[in-house]
C-alpha cells in the first residue's frame, strides 16, 4: 500500500501548531513511515501541485480569498483535518468579531484599510466540511497523533465532551479556584490531559466549550469564589468568539 500524500496548509494563524508537528521528536520518524508529506511550508520548499489525499489545515478563515482557497483544498483532499484553535474554533482571531468590521479594519490598517479584504473570522468547519478536529492552542501532540492514526484507519476520532476538570482531577492538581485563580477548566472540553494546569498555568479555554456548559451552575461557581462575571467573559472571549458575527457599525 502506498503511503497517503499529506499536505499541510495554513490560514490566519501564528503557525505555532506546525511547529508543534515539526517538534514531534522521535515520534516524527514513526509518523513519516506512515505518510508522505508533500507540502509543509514551515519545513520544506517542495509543493504538492495539488495532488494530495489528506489536507491538514491550520488557521482561521478571515478573507474572501481564504474562502476560495479552503474550498479548493476541500475539493482536492479526500480527508480534511483542522488543527489548532484558529482552525477548529476560530481561536484568538475571533476577537476581531467583537468589533464592527470597518472599524477594526481602520484600526489595524489605518489609511490603507481599503486595500484589504476582510470578513468576520470563521473556523474552517464554518466554511467547508471538516472530517477531524485537533483542538488546542497549540495542539497537544499526543492528541494529534491519535487523530492521525484514526484518519489513516478511516475511524472516527471522538473529542471528549467533558470538561478539562475531569483530566485535571485525574492528574491530581490542586484546583486553581482553591488558589484564588480563575480558570476555564470547568467549561472547556478535555483532550489535552490538562496540559496547562499540570504546568502551573490556568486553562484559557483554547479547546472550545463543552456542548452543555451548564450556565446556571457556572453562576453559582462565580458566586462561591466571588469572581466577577466580566473576568470569565473576557477569558471566554479570547478563544471562543468566532461563532458570533461582528456587531453592526453604529
Amino acid at each position, binding site marked *: 500500500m502506498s503511503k497517503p500524500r499529506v499536505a499541510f496548509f495554513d490560514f490566519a494563524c501564528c503557525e505555532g501548531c506546525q511547529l508543534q508537528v515539526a517538534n514531534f521528536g522521535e515520534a516524527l520518524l514513526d509518523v513519516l513511515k506512515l505518510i508522505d508529506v508533500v507540502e509543509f511550508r514551515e519545513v520544506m520548499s517542495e509543493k504538492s501541485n495539488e495532488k494530495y489525499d489528506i489536507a491538514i489545515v491550520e488557521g482561521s478563515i478571515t478573507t474572501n480569498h481564504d474562502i476560495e482557497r479552503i474550498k479548493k483544498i476541500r475539493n482536492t483532499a479526500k480527508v480534511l483535518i483542522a488543527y489548532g484553535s484558529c482552525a477548529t474554533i476560530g481561536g484568538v482571531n475571533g476577537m476581531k468579531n467583537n468589533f464592527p468590521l470597518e472599524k477594526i479594519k481602520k484600526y489595524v490598517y489605518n489609511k490603507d484599510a481599503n486595500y484589504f479584504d476582510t470578513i468576520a473570522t470563521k473556523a474552517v468547519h464554518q466554511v467547508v466540511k471538516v472530517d477531524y478536529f485537533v483542538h488546542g492552542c497549540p495542539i497537544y501532540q499526543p492528541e494529534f*497523533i491519535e487523530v492521525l492514526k484514526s484518519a489513516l*484507519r478511516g475511524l472516527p476520532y471522538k473529542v471528549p465532551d*467533558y470538561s478539562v476538570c475531569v483530566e485535571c482531577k485525574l492528574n491530581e492538581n490542586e484546583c486553581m479556584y482553591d488558589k484564588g485563580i480563575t480558570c476555564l477548566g470547568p467549561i472547556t472540553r478535555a483532550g489535552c490531559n490538562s496540559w496547562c494546569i499540570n504546568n502551573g498555568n490556568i486553562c484559557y479555554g483554547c479547546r472550545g466549550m463543552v456542548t452543555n456548559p451548564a450556565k446556571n451552575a457556572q453562576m453559582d461557581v462565580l458566586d462561591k469564589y466571588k469572581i466577577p462575571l466580566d473576568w470569565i467573559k473576557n477569558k471566554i472571549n479570547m478563544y471562543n468568539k468566532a461563532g458570533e458575527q461582528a456587531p453592526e457599525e453604529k
Partner: protein
Amino acid sequence: MKQFKILEKKDFPQFIKRLSKKHKVVAPVSRGNKSYAFTQVDSSDQIAMKYIPTILPPKKYFMPQRETLAQYNKSKKTFQTVLEFEELVIFGVHTCDLAGIQCLNIVFSDTPKDINYIARKNRILIIGLECNDYCDEYASCKVMDSHHPNGGYDLFFTELKESFIVHVNTLEGEGIIELTGLFKEATSNHLKEREGVIAAKKKIFKDEVDVHYKDLKPMFDKSAGSKVWEDLEKRCLSCGNCTNVCPTCYCFDIIDEINLDLDTGYRIRQWDSCQNEDFAKVAGGESFREERGQRQRHRYMRKFSYPVERYARHFCTGCGRCSRTCMAKINLKETINALAKENR
C-alpha cells in the same frame, strides 16, 4: 488480647527512613494551600500527619487512572493479557479511606473477579492512621460509621501523647514491625491512654445528618421524583469532580489503542464518570441520563441504595471529598438533609 505495639514519636523519622529503604512508601503530602496527595516519600518531613482527605483517594494505587489490560498484534493475530502491579506501602490511610478500599475489594472480588485489581491489591501494604478529631465540616464519617477502624489494614497507628500505639493486624504488618526494629510492647498505661482517645472521640463525632444510618436506604429509595434532584439539575456543572475523587466510584471505560505501526497496540482502561455528558449515551445518540439532575441522583443511589441491596454495605464513607471538591457547592450532607426534610 489484641496485639499492640508502641512507636515513640522520636523514632518516627527513623521508622519512615528504614521502611522507605526497603519499600516504596507513599503517604499524604501537602500539595498547595489546602490540598494533599498521596505521593512517594523517603523522609518523615515530607509527610503531612494532620491532613484533610487527599485530592484523590488511595484507590489510584488499586485501580490507576489509566492502566493497560492487554496487548495485541494484528499481523501475528495475538492477544495477551497484561498484569501491571508494584510492591507498595501506603502510610497514613484514614479510616474513611480504609472503608473505601474495603468497598472496592468487595466489588472487584465479585464474579467475575478483576484479576488486574487483585494483583495490585495483593502487593499493597496498608498502614492506617486514626483521626482523633474531624478533618473539616464536610466529613460525615460518623453517620457512615467509618470514623473508627473496621479492619482493612496491616498496621494501624493511633496517636498518643508521646508515642503511636500500633495495632498489628496481619503477618505482613508484623513483618514491618520486625523490619524496622523500632517498636516496643505496649504497656497497660498505653492501652489506657488509647481508651482515653477513643472515649474522647465518642464525644467529638456525632451524626452529621438528620437521618439515621439505617434509614438512609429507604429514604433514597423513595426519592426518585424528589424536588431535590430538580434543584441539583440547576446547580450541577457535570465536571465529574465528585465521582473522580470518590473512594468508592470505580466506573471505567475500556479503549483499544494502536501504536504508530498501525499493527500492534494495547487495551487500556481509564476512569470514567456517570456525571460526564456521554456516559450513558448509546449508539444512535440516545442518552439514558441526559439531565444533570438524573446523573446526580444516580450517583447518590450508587452510594446509598444499590450497593446496600447487592453487598449489604453503603458505598459512602463520609470522607466528604465530593462536597469539598464540588465547584458548585453541592454538599452531600445538605442533599441528605433536604431529602429528609421532604420526607417528614
